[in-house]
């Protein structure tokens, strides 16, 4: 049981993620999470104003079902399969975060400094989360995919465009983590 409650190893987790992608291919679909954002925009009626969202969102119901399952999985794993040993990151990372006033994990998935409910009372913290979301939503659609669509699905199919996108992900991520984040947090 310990094996389930503790952090899952990278080799088992990576293997299962690979199988998830392959199982969606076997079911005649593909592994790509960011397309759901477009589907949700379409569902909300954006197709009436912008052609990009005018498509039959019902053809994407299967992917919304994956989302629903993922949300349920997140709930079950967080509430029933976790313990205090989780998220034991590098002590050096913890020390660096402390200098930026970001709390240590101690079993939590997310830092309170950025994600606790107090955020709703801080315009700056709200803005950080919304702007981060805008970059993710805009960037993934512009690049035609996110971590699942390019890094996992695309690289698995040896796609050069996906390699370019993943290189972009890391350039952007490194710039944010090393140069921008220390200035704004």
């Amino acid at each position: 049981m310990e094996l389930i409650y503790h952090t899952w190893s990278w080799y088992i987790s990576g293997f299962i993620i690979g199988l998830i992608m392959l199982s969606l291919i076997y079911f005649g679909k593909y592994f790509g999470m960011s397309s759901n954002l477009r589907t949700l925009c379409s569902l909300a009626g954006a197709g009436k104003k912008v052609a990009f969202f005018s498509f039959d969102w019902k053809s994407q119901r299967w992917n919304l079902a994956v989302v629903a399952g993922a949300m349920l999985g997140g709930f079950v794993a967080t509430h029933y399969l976790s313990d205090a040993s989780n998220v034991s990151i590098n002590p050096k990372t913890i020390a660096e975060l402390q200098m930026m006033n970001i709390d240590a994990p101690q079993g939590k998935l997310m830092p309170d400094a950025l994600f606790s409910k107090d955020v709703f009372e801080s315009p700056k913290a709200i803005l950080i989360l919304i702007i981060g979301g805008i970059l993710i939503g805009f960037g993934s659609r512009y690049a035609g995919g996110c971590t699942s669509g390019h890094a996992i699905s695309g690289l698995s199919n040896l796609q050069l465009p996906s390699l370019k996108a993943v290189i972009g992900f890391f350039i952007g991520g490194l710039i944010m983590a090393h140069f921008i984040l220390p200035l704004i947090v």
Partner: protein
Amino acid sequence: MKLVKFILVGFIFGIVLTKSEAVSWYRIYEMFQFQSFHMYGIIMVAVLTGIIGIQIIKKYNLKDYSGAPICIPDKESSTVRYLLGGVIFGLGWALVGSCPGPIFILIGAGFTTVILVLLGALIGTFIYGVLKDKLPH
């Protein structure tokens, strides 16, 4: 129901991403600081599993569950959109520590503030839809 298998695949996806902590802001930060192999290991093994699986599918012309041949379309070739879009995505990924999959998983797990990230992601997707024809691809 036809959708049950997709809910089940999603369910396993949500559990694995949570239990591997790939949904954790901390793990993404640690990855971008090169202070842990964990996230790199996950991505590498997932891709390796995928490469082997897809090679087997192609070599033996495997069929999908309905008996139709499996055909995985190539990505359209270009550079600007992938690099530029990728960089913009990466900036957001490292800022809020979650990509589209984890956004949904974390909301399901009860992190209500991540709804703000989802809201932003929908706005960002909408902005792309509006600007699409004016952007270099």
